[in-house]
């Protein structure tokens, strides 16, 4: 088991310093080329890498040595072909990566195309390789010429000077790469880049300007000497931003002359050159450099070197955001505690260890009492403060347990290994006291209470999910008894959970009293994180028990048939709310809503009329409604279900197949019935990119969706890395806790106003 979702890409970035070290140790052109192309291929796990200059293959790996001059390689380098037929591999897709005007690196990897970051890494390595080769060629030429004619000594010296300059370029690259790999703060790295560029390129002013909101102090400026200082004083911040944006747009790719306004409105001519700086392949701004020039003088700037520095800035940004995502993937940002994903992994591990050791494990579920009213009465800032303080309170007791986490909302969990029921109950009581001792800001909450459920696992007896469920039941039993207490799970507790008959009556009463409320989870366009739709999810606001999660009552509702009326109620609320949101100014004019339709609902004779009636009375356009069904529908009466779906489709609504992949996933039905949306079940998304989840299944599902012209929605996205993987796999839409948990209508309205933020 490996639940860690770690993008493999940092490895290729991490290998840059190693690549640089290796390449700078090369002493011959041949040695640099042969080990350079191998390392290049290795860094991105490619089978083939070739360096092609002016139509000549300088070196290649992947082919046996006698086939290195293969015409296919040249064809790919020239852009005539995108395929290579490699002995031992067969035909593979290949990409040309331009390094400079005459040199191209060709890379091919079996089964999996290179992503933008990898291509950028290949380009950076290619540039260093080309620089090194030029350097070594110069040195070799120089050696040869010095043997031939002594009178060329002067020329040789200038060649040597150039060689040394290129050597310094390599050293400079290496210094910056080291800062990147040591994960120094981004602004320090950017500053180092402008410093190095200033010195090496003999520029008077070098700047990096980025349009990256939320990352302060990221712009860097370096100047050389008095001239540079003067230029910087003359430039307004608007000028600097404008230069950065021109560089970002590629407008400064070739050095050009510009007028620099100086004191007294007299414009002085300067040479300016620049290149874009990207994060994960997306342009964020630019690196630019300038020096005074004379009108009519010829302009010479090493544009390849400018791009190398900009490329390093791109790597620094990309790497920093990857590290950020890595941390974010495992921790709750508000409290700093482990998040759900990490906690579940630790719990798995603890249970496995306990089984080996034969020791008991305790799980504590802590739920704050009346947290909603704290938010409602004192605002979300006060609520967040409470959560932060609870996190800190748990942290203070950390010597007594192995791991603590915020599972979401006001739910916390604590894991104790190798423990006893007495110790677990004692810790629960201590934690409850320390939470009660908390004080909020003046005139806000004070002495908060909590309900704690404790469940014990004897070695090998319960699974992780079962243990979570037991602790949850124990916690709910506290809530049921009046909150602010501790309970340990016991067998009767499970048995006394309300049976279906009781629930059926209770559900009817709840329906009559309007206790079913609809929460909404946003559906996001993964391309731009825009909210394109919402999924309506029913919740039961039980006055006794608080908010009851669906898994506690939906099965009973299904069994007793109550699901038909509850489902209709959900449709009614969702359609009305969505219609209103669509008409609320520019808030969400194109918002769509998805509503689940159970198999039992679909069996009802009047279902088509009911849906039509709800659409009409709410005023929601038919195309704004998506009905979600699961594959299990077809298990009972596929023909009848299909006919109903056809009729519903006839109304103009969209149809989605939900939890795809968890049922029997028969393509037959997907092909036969008019589905518009394919929703990939969360179990395929969890841990995407980790060793445990290569994404192969998701990839196939996405291909299937594309083949059938269906919109694909990934469910249960919880980490930025899962998101990154899905984007790389070209999944168009998604939903999950990373963007937002299911929220009430009021919170949804606020979210639509401010947009989706993935908090730092």
């Amino acid at each position: 088991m490996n639940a860690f979702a770690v993008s493999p890409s940092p490895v290729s970035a991490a290998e840059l310093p190693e690549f640089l070290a290796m390449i700078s140790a090369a002493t011959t052109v041949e040695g640099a080329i042969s080990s350079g192309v191998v390392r290049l291929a290795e860094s991105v796990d490619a089978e083939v890498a070739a360096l092609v200059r002016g139509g000549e293959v300088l070196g290649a790996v992947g082919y046996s040595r006698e086939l290195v001059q293969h015409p296919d390689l040249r064809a790919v380098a020239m852009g005539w072909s995108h395929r290579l037929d490699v002995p031992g591999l067969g035909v593979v897709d290949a990409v040309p990566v331009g390094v400079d005007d005459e040199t191209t690196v060709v890379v091919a990897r079996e089964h999996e195309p290179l992503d933008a970051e990898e291509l950028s890494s290949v380009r950076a390595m290619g540039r260093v390789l080309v620089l090194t080769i030029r350097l070594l060629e110069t040195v070799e030429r120089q050696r040869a010429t010095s043997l031939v004619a002594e009178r060329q000594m002067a020329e040789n010296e200038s060649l040597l000077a150039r060689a040394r300059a290129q050597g310094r370029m390599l050293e400079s690259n290496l210094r910056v790469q080291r800062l990147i790999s040591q994960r120094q703060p981004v602004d320090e790295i950017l500053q180092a880049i402008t410093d190095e560029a200033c010195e090496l390129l003999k520029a008077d002013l070098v700047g990096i300007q980025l349009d990256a909101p939320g990352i302060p102090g990221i712009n860097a400026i370096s100047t050389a000497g008095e001239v540079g200082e003067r230029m910087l004083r003359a430039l307004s911040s608007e000028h600097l931003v404008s230069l950065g944006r021109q560089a970002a747009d590629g407008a400064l790719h070739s050095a050009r002359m510009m007028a620099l306004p100086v004191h007294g409105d007299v414009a002085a001519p300067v040479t300016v050159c620049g290149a874009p700086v990207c994060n994960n392949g997306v342009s964020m701004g630019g690196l630019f450099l300038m020096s005074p020039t004379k009108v009519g003088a010829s302009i010479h700037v090493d544009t390849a070197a400018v791009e190398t520095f900009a490329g390093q800035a791109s790597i620094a940004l990309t790497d920093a955001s990857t590290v950020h995502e890595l941390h974010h993937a495992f921790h709750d940002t508000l409290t700093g505690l482990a998040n759900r994903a990490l906690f579940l992994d630790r719990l798995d591990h603890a249970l496995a260890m306990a089984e080996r050791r034969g020791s008991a494990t305790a799980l504590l579920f802590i739920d704050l009492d009346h947290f909603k009213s704290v938010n409602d009465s004192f605002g979300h800032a006060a609520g967040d403060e409470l959560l932060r303080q609870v996190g800190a309170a748990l942290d203070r007791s950390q010597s007594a347990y192995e791991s603590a986490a915020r599972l979401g909302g006001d739910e916390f969990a604590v894991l104790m290994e190798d423990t006893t029921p007495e110790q677990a109950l004692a810790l629960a009581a201590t934690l409850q006291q320390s939470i009660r001792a908390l004080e909020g800001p003046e005139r806000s909450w004070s002495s908060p209470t909590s309900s704690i459920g404790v469940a014990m696992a004897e070695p090998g007896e319960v699974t992780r999910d079962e243990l979570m469920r037991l602790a949850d039941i124990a916690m709910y039993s506290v809530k049921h008894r009046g909150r602010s207490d501790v309970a340990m799970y016991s067998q009767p507790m499970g048995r006394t959970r309300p049976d279906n008959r009781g629930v059926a009556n209770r559900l009817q009463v709840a329906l009559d009293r309007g206790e079913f409320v609809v929460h909404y989870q946003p559906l996001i366009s993964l391309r731009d994180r825009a909210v394109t739709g919402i999924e309506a999810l029913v919740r039961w606001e039980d006055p006794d028990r608080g908010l009851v999660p669906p898994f506690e009552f939906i099965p009973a509702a299904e069994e007793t048939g109550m699901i038909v009326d509850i489902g209709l109620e959900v449709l009614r609320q969702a359609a009305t709310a969505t219609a209103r949101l669509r008409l609320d100014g520019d808030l969400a004019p194109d918002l769509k809503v998805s509503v689940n339709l159970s198999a039992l609902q679909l069996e009802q004779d009047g279902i088509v009329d009911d849906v039509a009636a709800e659409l009409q009375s709410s005023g929601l356009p038919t195309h704004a409604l998506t009905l979600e069904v699961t594959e299990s529908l077809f298990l009972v009466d596929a023909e009848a279900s299909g006919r109903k779906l056809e009729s519903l489709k006839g109304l103009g609504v969209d149809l989605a197949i939900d939890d795809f992949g968890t049922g029997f996933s028969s393509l037959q039905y997907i092909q036969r019935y008019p589905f518009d949306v394919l929703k990939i079940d969360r179990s395929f998304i969890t841990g995407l990119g980790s060793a445990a989840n290569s994404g192969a299944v998701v990839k196939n599902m996405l291909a299937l969706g594309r083949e059938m012209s269906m919109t694909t929605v990934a469910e249960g996205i919880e980490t930025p890395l899962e998101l990154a993987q899905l984007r790389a796999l070209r999944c168009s839409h998604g939903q999950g806790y990373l963007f937002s948990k299911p929220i009430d209508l009021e919170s949804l309205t606020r979210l639509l106003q401010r947009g989706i933020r993935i908090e730092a």
Partner: protein
Amino acid sequence: MLNVLAEETLVASEAGVETSGGERRPSTRWFGVGRSIDPDSRLAGAEAASHANRGPTPGLVVVFASAGHDLKEVAAGVAEAAPGVEMVGVATSGEVLAGDEARRGVAVAALGGPGFSVATSVTSAASSDLFRAGARAAEVCAGAPERPHRVLMMLSDSRSGDQQELVRGAYAEVGASIPIVGGATAEDPGHAPTGQLHNGEAHSDAVVSVIIGSDAPIGIGVRHGWTSVGEPMLISRSEGTELLEIDGAPALERYLRALGAPPSLAEDSDAFVELAMLHPLGIRRRRSEEVRFVGGCDPARGSLRLVAGIPDGTPAWLMEGDGASVMAGTIASCREAVDALGPFDPQGLLMFDCIARRSVLGVDGLDSKLVALAPTLGDTPVAGFYTAGEFARLRGVRGFHNQTLVSLAFA
């Protein structure tokens, strides 16, 4: 024609049959193993080789001799039992042999028959330029007749340096067309130096390479049996195979803290190695999870010594394993190799198994390993040795592993 068929039928009684073109017909290849615990090196070589060499037209003998033996004498004995046959081998700190785990003996695997072709070479002074040594070792591939299935086997010396450099050199020579397998010999303190064997000559700091071509598939299995635990750590400073900092803290301190071990453990090198053996570091590659063996520490420098380096900036995990998980890795590796043969029956397996894995399994573990392998292998002959680093390049350029079992199955 009739005569040839009669001869093949004779072989088939030993080596099984294969399906071709819808008809079952006798295999033209055979594989055998033999062992000896005779203390006399020459006699041991001869005895093991005569047991292994059991078919017509032998093509190759692979010798695994305990480091206590005189490698040259072992070779002489082998040559007596298998005169004129291409010979490669290693002096090891332990041999793998199905039916018995010879800790201090000689094991020989032999293969032959018209369905196999073999060429061998030796490249000495590998440490002076491992990349070039790898390329030269792979030149042997040009020397064997073309067959539909081929594998390059390299037997090297772990003391020569970063063995991935060998793989890079070999890959630069042969490209993606030929998979690479093999292993590096482990140091064996207290015994004669380990070494490599080629056609009767003993070498050290050498790479012995063999290209084996076959008319039937050759299966390769690569598994380790460790799982990652806890949060990822960041390798923040390393130099070659010395790991200086993890998460910005001294690597040794951070490693011991992650294990929950007392800092004083660093002072007791035996106890440290014993613990480190069970907790290698794992790094995630695009296509696999790689294991890096922590072979020791330097308390003065606060650093860890690895067998293969991890570049700065790489996320790494603590790995964990026990007898059961390493066992599961063993079975999976064999099964993977055998499954890759498709409809063909395995004739024999060569195994390159990390010495650290043996330490985890312990002596009882070794017995249970053979029992556990029975459902996969039956009475298929197996031979191999305990390595300090294993070669298996199947995709991409990477092909040097740690704490891994590489299985090579012949049909």
